[in-house]
Structures are given as C-alpha cells and as structure tokens.
C-alpha cells in the first residue's frame, strides 16, 4: 500500500520536471510572440524613418544667372505670351556654362544641363515677373538640383562610396568643384511641403494631397457625424423592437466588416455611373468614405449613449420632459465626448484609406493644389501609392517622407481621441 503511494509520488515527481519544462516553453512562446509584434513595429518604423528622413532636405546648387533678354527672347515684360514662352532654362544653362568653362564639348554640356532641376525655369520666371528690374541683370541664387544629383550628393558621405547609378563622370567632377567652393549644399526642402505632385521627384510635394485629404475629410465628417449620431440615437432611444430594427442592426454590423474596396465599387456604380458625379473630386471621395466610416461612428456613438445612466433619463422624464427633450437636452450632451472620440477614430480610419478611392478616380496625376471640394484632387495615401509606383529612385525617399507625414497626422488624431476620452469621460 505504502509502496503504491511512493510509486505514484515518484511518477508525479518524474512528470513534474516535464510539466515545468512545458510551462517554461509555453511562457517562452508567449514572450516570443509579443517580441515578434514589438519587433515588427520597430522594424516598420525604423525602415520608414531611415528611408524617408533624407527627403526633408534637398540638394541646392548656388549659381549666378544672367537674365539676358536675348537668351530669354523677352523684350517686353508686360507681354504675357513672351514671358510664358521665355527660355528660362536657357538662362540656367548659360549660367552653368559660364561657371564651368572647362566643359565645352557637346557631351559635357548635355551633362551640365541635367544638373539643375528642369522645374527651376518656372522659379526664375516667377522671380522676374515679381521683380521686372532684374531683366538684363545678374543674380546669384540657390537652385534645386536634379534628383539624380540629389541622390548622389546625399549618399556622398556614406561609407562604401556614393551611389553613382545615373551620374556621369562629368557631373561628378562638377559636384566636386561645387563642393570645394561651397556652392552645393543640403537645405530644407520647401518644395516638398508647398507643391503638388510632379513627374520630377525634386519638384514633387505633398501639399496638394494634404489639401485634398483635408477637403475629403471635411466632407466625410460633415456627413457621417450627424448621420451616425442620429442613427445611434434612433437605435438606442426610440427604435421599437421589431424586424426592421433588427435588419438595421444586422446591416450595420455587416457593413463594419465589408472590405473597403467594395465601397469603392458602390461609389463607381452608383455615384459616378448612375448619378454622374464627376470623378476625382473630394466630394465623391467624401461620400464613399462617409458610407465606409458610418458603421464605426454608429457603433461608438451607441456605446457612448449606453454609458449614460438611466437615472438621468428617469429624472428628466420625472420633471415632465418629452422623450425627445430627454435625448436632446440630457443624453446627447452627456454622450458627446464619447461620440467625438468615435468620430475622430473614424476620421483617422478615413484618412488612411486608399482602396475605395482608387476606384473613383482619385488616382489621377494632379499637379495643381485643389481649390475646393469640387476641384480634382488626390489624397495623401493615394499620393503615397502613386509615388511608390514611380521608378525614380528619389521617389522612394519622398514616399517614405509622405508616409511619415501621414503617420504624424494619424498619431495626432489618435492622441487627441485618447486625450479627449480621458479628459471628458465621466464615471457614473
């Protein structure tokens, strides 16, 4: 009998080691899983930041340009067609030839021409229009370098040599010369924050997309917040228990899980094809995103209304308020912080959304800054998508920088939501 017990105890003791090992293993798996998740966050963010931080600075080349009326082919600055046709890139070219007289062969000249961004001619035109007395005089300016030169110059200090992919011998010698005289330098990239899209990486900016995103979000918010809150109020406070109400609830829960691209198909077939709303404008983007974010806003608003204790309602009814007055005067103001939090989270979701907007033509190449909700625009995530597809190496940097801007907005919105919830939430 006693032997039996001993045997059992031994058996258990023997098993114990194995079980403890399993326990340790299990725990280790858990740590690994959490570590994997954290590692993913770390890798994602460091990857984006290391790729993108360079884009906030841009290579500029200092050059003396002479606004020669003959090269420009401008005699009268008041004549707009003359100014529009003026050969401003010729002026820049001439400035480069004068600066580097040693490169005089045709080949070398061609290489020289490619040093300065082709968009800088417009910059000179604007300067000349603003200050007509410059005509016939010289001016020393910092001009934006071409994207290949920019990529080369930025990788200059790296160990293992610079990235020389698309830069010729001549151009390298020129950069060397400019470097010695201090005429080439990295400066804050203002183009990136003030311009619209461009085929030239050094001239491309996110401002157009930011403005487009802004208009789209304003429309989304203006539509989805009132509709979502009204729907939540109806479902929580007034809806009778019947089939129709059940149908609405089932629909809301399902729509919350429908892939976003389906909303794009809806927008394409119903809004564009049937109602003939023009493509690519923030209005239609806002409409589609409204339908997409509505479930989120309804669900969070309902939770906020549910959190208002019944005693408040009963007290209001007790002193003679009608059900509508109870809701409008008491429940709604008390639930507002929760609803606002939900709205901000819904807007953050809408700001990061890309797929449905591809369907409704917001992928167009748009250079101008949109002037209103009815002028063609693109949005920040779509701009990222477009740039990510571009073959130029310099666009990788721009894309990452645009992602950093997008993430900054999202972090700002989510922090505001959390802050708002902490600040205004009341415990009953």
């Amino acid at each position, binding site marked *: 009998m006693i032997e039996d017990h001993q045997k059992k105890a031994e058996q258990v003791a023997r098993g114990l080691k194995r*079980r403890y090992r*399993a*326990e340790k293993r*299990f*725990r280790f798996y*858990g*740590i690994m*899983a*959490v570590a*994997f*998740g*954290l590692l*993913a*966050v770390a890798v*994602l963010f460091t*990857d*984006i930041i290391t*790729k993108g931080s360079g884009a906030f600075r841009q290579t500029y080349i200092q050059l003396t340009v002479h606004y020669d009326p003959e090269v420009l082919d401008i005699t009268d600055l008041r004549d707009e067609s003359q100014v529009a046709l003026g050969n401003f890139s010729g002026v820049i070219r001439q400035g480069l030839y004068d600066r580097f007289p040693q490169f005089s062969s045709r080949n070398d000249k061609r290489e020289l021409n490619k040093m300065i961004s082709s968009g800088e001619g417009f910059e000179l035109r604007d300067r000349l229009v603003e200050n007509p007395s410059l005509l016939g005089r010289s001016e020393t300016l910092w001009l934006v370098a071409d994207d290949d030169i920019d990529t080369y110059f930025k990788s200059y200090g790296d160990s293992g040599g610079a990235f020389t992919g698309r830069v010729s011998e001549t151009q390298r010698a020129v950069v060397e010369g400019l470097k010695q005289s201090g005429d080439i330098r990295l400066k804050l990239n203002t183009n990136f924050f003030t311009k619209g899209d461009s085929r030239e990486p050094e001239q491309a900016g996110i401002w157009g997309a930011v403005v487009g995103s802004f208009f789209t979000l304003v429309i989304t918010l203006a539509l989805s917040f009132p509709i*979502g809150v*009204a*729907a939540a*109020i*109806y479902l929580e406070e*007034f809806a009778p228990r019947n089939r129709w109400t059940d149908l*609405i609830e089932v*629909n809301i*829960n*399902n*729509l919350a*899980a*429908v*892939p*976003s*691209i*389906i*909303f794009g*198909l*809806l927008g*394409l*077939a*119903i809004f564009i094809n049937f109602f003939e709303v023009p493509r690519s404008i923030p209005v239609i983007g806002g409409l589609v995103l409204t*339908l997409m974010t509505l479930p989120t806003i309804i669900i969070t608003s309902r939770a906020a209304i549910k959190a208002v204790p019944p005693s408040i309602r009963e007290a209001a009814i007790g002193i003679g308020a*009608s059900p*509508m007055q109870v809701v409008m005067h008491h429940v709604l103001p008390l639930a507002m912080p929760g609803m606002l939090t939900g709205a901000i989270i819904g807007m*953050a979701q809408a*700001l*990061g*959304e*890309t*797929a449905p907007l*591809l*369907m409704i033509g917001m*992928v167009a190449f748009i250079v101008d800054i949109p002037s209103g909700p009815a002028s063609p625009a693109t949005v920040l*995530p779509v701009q*990222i998508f477009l740039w*990510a597809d571009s073959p130029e190496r310099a666009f990788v940097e721009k*894309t*990452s920088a645009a992602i950093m801007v*997008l*993430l900054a907005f999202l972090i700002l919105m989510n922090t505001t939501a959390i802050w708002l919830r902490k600040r205004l939430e009341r415990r009953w």
Partner: protein
Amino acid sequence: MHTANLLLILMAMVVAAYYLARGRSLVMAKPLGGIRHLHSLPFYYGLRASLWCAVPSLLLLVIWLIFDEPLIAGLVLGSLPDALQPTSVSEENLMLSTVRNLATGSLAADNVDSALVVASERLIALREMGSRIVSAGVLGLALLGGFGAWLTISPLLRARQQVERVFKGVLFSCACVAIFTTLGILLSVLFESLRFFEAVPVTEFLFGTSWSPQTAIRADQVGSSGAFGAVPLFVGTMLISFIAMVVAVPVGLMSAIYLAEYAHGKVRAYAKPVLEILAGVPTVVYGFFAALTVAPFLRDAGAGVGLSVSSESALAAGLVMGVMIIPFISSLADDVITAVPQSLRDGSLALGATHSETIKKVIFPAALPGIVGGVLLAVSRAIGETMIVVMAAGLAANLTLNPLETVTTITVQIVTLLVGDQEFDSPKTLAAFALGLMLFVVTLILNFIALHVVKKYREQYD
C-alpha cells in the same frame, strides 16, 4: 438664380419664420397670462414654422437638381431637325456634350452644324427659364409654408408633437442609411455582374483555370479572346490569406495569452498599446513596406540559400498582411480570454495544474468560440485586404500553391481592371464587378458564421 444665392435667401426666410412664429405665440400668450398657457414652448412654434418653410421648398429644389439636366437635354434633343436626330446612345451623348460645350463657350461655333448652335442657344434659354421657374417655385413654397404655419398658430396647437414627429422621422431615415448602403452595394455589384454573366458563362468564371482579361479592339488581334476563369485568383487569394493567418493566428493568440495571463501589469500597460499601433497603420504603408523592404529581403535571402524567390512573391505580401492582422486577433482574443471567469482558473490551479495547463485545458476551450469567431473575421479581412496585395503581389494569374512564386488576388484584379477610364460595356470592366460580388458574398458568409459561432457557442457563466 444661382443655387447658392437661393439657399442663402431660403436660410434667411427660415430664420425669419422662426422669429415671427415665436413672436406670434408670445403675443398670443400674453393676454392668457404667460407662456404656461400655451400648449408647447414658444421655441416649438418657431421651429414648426421653420420646418414648414424649409422642408417643402428644399424637397422641390432637390427634385429639380436631380431631374433638370435630363429634362432639358431631352427637350433640346427633341428640337433638333430630323436629319440630326441621334441614332444611338453614344451618339446622343456626343451630341449633348457638343451642345453643352457650345453653350459654355469652350467650343467655338465656327465649324459645327448651325442646328447645333441653335440647339446650344436653346439650351441656355431653357436653363435660364428653368432656373427662374424653380427659384420662384422654391421661394413661393417657402413663403406659403412659413405663412401657413404662422397663421395656424394658436395656444392649443400641438406644436411640440409635430416638431418631434419630424425629428423622429429624420432620425429614422438616418438609421436606414445602413440598409440603403447594403442595398446599394448589392444592386451595383449584382447588376453589372449579371451583365458580365451574359457575356461569360457563370461556370467558366467559377471553374475556369485561365485568367487573362483583355478584350480585343480588332477581331484579328493576338490574344483577343479574353479568358475569365477566376480559379487562379481564388487560389492566389487563399494562398496569401493562408500565409497571413499562419503568421497572425499563433502570434496574435500567444501574445494575447501572454499579456492577459503572464505579463506584469507594467509590461501589459506598455506592450499592448504598442502592438495596437500596428492596427492604426494605413494599409498603403504596409504595402510600401512589403514591396520595398520585405520582398527584396526575401529575394536576396532566397538567392543566398539557392532558392529563386520572385520579387513579387506571395510570401512577402502574406507575411506583411499577417503582421497587419496580429493586433486584430490579439485584441479580440484578449477580450474573450479576460471574459473567462477567475473561478475557472482558481479551480484548475487548485487541482494542481500548472499555469500553462490551465490555459491550454481550461481557459482556451472556454474562450474557443470567441477565438474562432475572431479568426473568421480576420480571414474575411485578409481576403478583402487590397493595398498590400496591389503593391506587393503580382498581376500574373499563376495557378500555384508555391508561396515563392507570384500570384494575384481578387482585389488586385478589381483594382487593375477599374483604375483609369473604363467603358461599362466590355466584359473586362464588368468582370471586376463579378469579382466584387464574389468578394462581398464570401466576406458576408464569413462574417455571418463568425457572429453566429460567437452567439451560439458562447458559454454563459453568470
């Protein structure tokens, strides 16, 4: 009159109606001895008049804005001489746009048919007349409504009930937007899909194994016969979703278990929000990460061990999609694990089970329905995910289960077929809607099963 001006005038009238009606109720209340002798508060009398002023006139305006262009276009086309009458829909559209461009002046009148110039003048005249009639109608209706409401005010009028009924109607119609959205989705994908299935048989679409959705411009073109067998897309979607689930389910589940059962309060307080950052990152960012970092890394790593990995491999897209879904699974699993009552844990530990045995044999089975539901929802998300696969997966419709090769998915094909200009009568465009229908139906079924599983098999402890 311009619509914006009309709206401004209307708004002024609505405000005026509110104050006039409110004032009248106050005047009526005075001889009776104060507003407590009115049926409703003066506010409601004012609001009632505003509503009468605004609602009918706005309805008229909206109806006009929807129907004005087709109506006027019909009248203009009808006035054209018989020789110019359009014979087909596309010809009609072309003619209309010519007339419209003439009317706006963006097309010079020199080198077009003089009948069209006459038509454009008629268009301008009709537009002006229509806008005048409607402006008069809207303002008249607003005046009539507001005045009627003002006239009918009496101390016994149940103004509050009337206003509240309207408000309740508005709330109800807002709640119905959800139903109309679903209906809109169904109608839009269903109709275009039916048109697609007229051109391509359903069986070919569902069971065909070759996908090359180009349609010929000329009949003798190379590769003119488009093939619409969607099996490679289904397989590709499944493959990428499967890889994503292989990453997301174990990692998401284990990290939820660790954070809920083992982790120190402090670790949990920091690790959980950091993991949730992954849920807030836009999918386009994941797509960029997959295409420019993960895919080249996998290709180089594969080359290092002598494997040929495609630069648009299913593996890269799947891995990154898995990372995206981790927080989704872990937060759902966390909810159901923390919902398992403490008494079950205590009972198991008291019987001598180790912590991990408690989790595996007691907590996990108790939480299983919720976890299964969460995983199903995650699968439906993986299937519908678009940007990661658009950027990181390929376009070639290979029928393969090899994760190192390029595959394409339903969502990638929808995007490629529909981005840019498209005409709605070629099977190529319509195929996207058929794929959309499949996607909608499959995700709907998955969501339905997930909700059902959670509801039906959830253990009730309290």
